[in-house]
């Protein structure tokens, strides 16, 4: 069940909602004021580590004909790509390191090692997903336009194939992400500006081309007679990265307990209500330091969604305070071990491949309110079109 009103759902008074907002603003201010040398050292360490891993992987693969070297090189390269996409790319492009005033680690010019152009990601993810988190019909991250992830999304026989689509999406996740900002739904409805579409397709073609040239032509060619084994190693490294990022990202909003919202919630939503929606719509997972680094600290998805542009190495510290707020105000704070969160996500994907009447449980029993699902024609204009971002402005 998707919710139309965050306040109603949480049973908080208006004053309480505002107080929570003020507490969260306070946390932001404290972290902002305390950013300094240690944080810079952290990100520089990760950058150095990532580049060394990448270089070591590429070099090892010169011996890719030798199976242990193939394995080691692939593992090194795969980890380098994971680290680059998660802890570096995702977080840098959110502006988490902009405060350093360092042009080399800045959201305005970071480009990441995957097929989606950074500029498009900053729109589809940083803006659309983070502003409209879990609002059905607005947040394209709900099922990535491929999967039915909420009971409020209409079932269609095509959904029967969900487990297969999901497996394919996991394997080729970077390509799914690359197409994300095209907004397939808008194209289907004929609402997409064709000029923008062409511009975006060109950008994607350029980026995919450069990535493929590097991994599937240049490096294999460099290793000469071992062209094929290097190519398979690079391909495998990309797949490893894809499966991993897909898993981590799906754990952010789809475990049991993370709720969805309807567009009514967006009407006159205050900043405090936005905060609440982020907390209720996101889910964390638990694990050791290494796991958190390799997932770009997205095990602290709740904290990330509250403060997408605060440095990722601070989320652990922020989480203590956020958990405390949740306890005091009796708001759910969804977390659990990674395997459980991932398991619940997979279960939802399987379950929702069937129509609602075929499944029994209701993930939100506390809501008795039944709503009629809005028809497309009844929906308000998509909010995403209100924004004016560089991609749209420069066509």
């Amino acid at each position: 069940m998707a919710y139309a009103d965050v306040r109603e759902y949480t049973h908080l008074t208006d004053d309480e909602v505002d107080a929570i907002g003020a507490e969260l603003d306070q946390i932001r201010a404290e972290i902002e004021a305390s950013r300094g040398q240690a944080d810079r050292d952290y990100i520089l360490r990760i950058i150095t580590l990532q580049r060394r891993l990448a270089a070591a992987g590429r070099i090892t693969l010169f011996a890719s004909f030798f199976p242990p070297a193939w394995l080691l090189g692939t593992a090194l390269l795969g980890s380098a790509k994971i680290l680059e996409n998660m802890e570096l790319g995702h977080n840098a492009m959110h502006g988490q390191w902009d405060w350093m005033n360092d042009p080399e680690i800045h959201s305005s010019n970071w480009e990441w090692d995957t097929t989606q152009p950074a500029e498009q990601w900053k729109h589809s993810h940083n803006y659309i997903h983070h502003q409209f988190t879990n609002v059905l019909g607005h947040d394209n991250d709900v099922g990535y336009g491929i999967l039915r992830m909420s009971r409020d999304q209409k079932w269609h026989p095509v959904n029967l194939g969900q487990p297969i689509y999901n497996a394919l999406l996991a394997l080729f996740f970077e390509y799914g992400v690359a197409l994300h900002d095209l907004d397939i739904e808008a194209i289907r409805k004929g609402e997409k500006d064709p000029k923008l579409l062409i511009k975006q397709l060109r950008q994607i073609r350029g980026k995919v081309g450069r990535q493929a040239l590097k991994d599937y032509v240049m490096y294999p060619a460099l290793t000469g007679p071992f062209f094929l084994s290097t190519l398979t190693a690079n391909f495998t490294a990309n797949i490893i990265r894809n499966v991993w990022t897909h898993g981590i990202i799906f754990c952010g909003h789809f475990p049991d307990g993370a709720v969805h919202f309807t567009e009514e919630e967006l009407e006159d939503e205050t900043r405090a209500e936005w905060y609440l929606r982020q907390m209720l719509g996101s889910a964390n997972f638990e694990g050791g330091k290494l796991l958190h680094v390799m997932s770009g600290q997205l095990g602290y998805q709740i904290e990330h969604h509250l403060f997408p542009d605060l440095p990722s190495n601070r989320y652990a510290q922020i989480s203590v305070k956020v958990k405390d707020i949740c306890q005091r105000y009796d708001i759910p704070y969804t977390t659990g071990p990674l395997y459980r969160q991932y398991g619940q996500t997979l279960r939802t994907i399987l379950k929702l491949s069937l129509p609602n009447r075929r499944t029994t449980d209701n993930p939100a029993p506390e809501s008795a309110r039944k709503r009629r699902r809005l028809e497309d024609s009844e929906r308000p204009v998509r909010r995403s079109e209100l924004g004016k971002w560089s991609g749209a402005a420069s066509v």
Partner: protein
Amino acid sequence: MTAPLIERSAALRRLRQLGKAMTTPLSPHDYLALINPLWSQRELRGRIDQVVPETERAATLVIRPGWGWSFDHAPGQYIGIGVEMDGRFHWRSYSLSSVPLVEGKTVSITVKAMPEGFLSDHLVNGLAPGTIVRLAAPQGDFIVPDPPPAKMLMLVGGSGITPIMSILRTLERRGTLPDVVLAYSALHEADMMFHDELRELAERTDSLHFVPRFTEDEGMLTADRLVEVSPDWQEREAWACGPGPMLDAFSAHYEAHGLLDHLHVERFTLAKADGTASGGTVTFGVGGPSVEVDGATTLLEAGEKAGVNMLFGCRMGICHTCDAPLASGTVRDLRSGAEHGEPNEYIQTCVSVAAGDCTLTL
């Protein structure tokens, strides 16, 4: 301008393209910079070679630029220097005091510690040789034509001497130093940068007439007394650099005599907001449109009001679509109340208001 070697050779260019294809989306420099930070070509960098004290509160920083630097700046121009302090880069502009090309491997800037300027203080007292700094290429049009006019007047206050120093040294080195009157004011002798060098230069050459003035005893050189320093000031092409009020006074004086065309002025002290200011004049792009705003209107709204094509996404400080670099002035973040006033700092226009006059780079 001679292009860097790598631009000139077709073979090197191809090699670079190949390297880029192999390191995409990074560039080869990102890896090379791990070995030597000066090998970055993403942006200009330099290494501090020497810190030479000039006075008690001023020092010359001799910087060895890394790849991509061309040494043929025009004397009188300034560079940007970005120095890291507590994890954050702070950018300032300083005039080059070195002579173009001749020294070949280094450039120098001369920095005076300002009473409230924590960065200038850090530069004068805190930079160890070997420190890596970021650089922005020389710019500015406070320059002297080549060949220079036959008669020149230089009006200098305090640290305004640095671009003048570069100009004088260059002219002397080229053997084209014309008839120059240099009126240079500082608090007292110990506070006067390059005092000895200027005296020597004046003794060595007939054409430099050096008029030092120590304002602690003699007071400021006011515009109406200019004639005492240089009776023929009206016949001279003038270059003035120093504190704002001084420049204002001389500009007014020249204007009153209909000679404003003959005065070249360089300003480099930015007025900093006092911490309580709210609202002000916001300018969009240097020389762009500007609007008066109060302390509650966000810069994004102000821009829209001024008819500027502002970029935005969420309008609530999440997505950073609205980020724009601050050229000058101070802004306040509505969420935290924190002030941001670093030149070149990116600010979120949707949640920032003006704290005094400010200019955005768009």
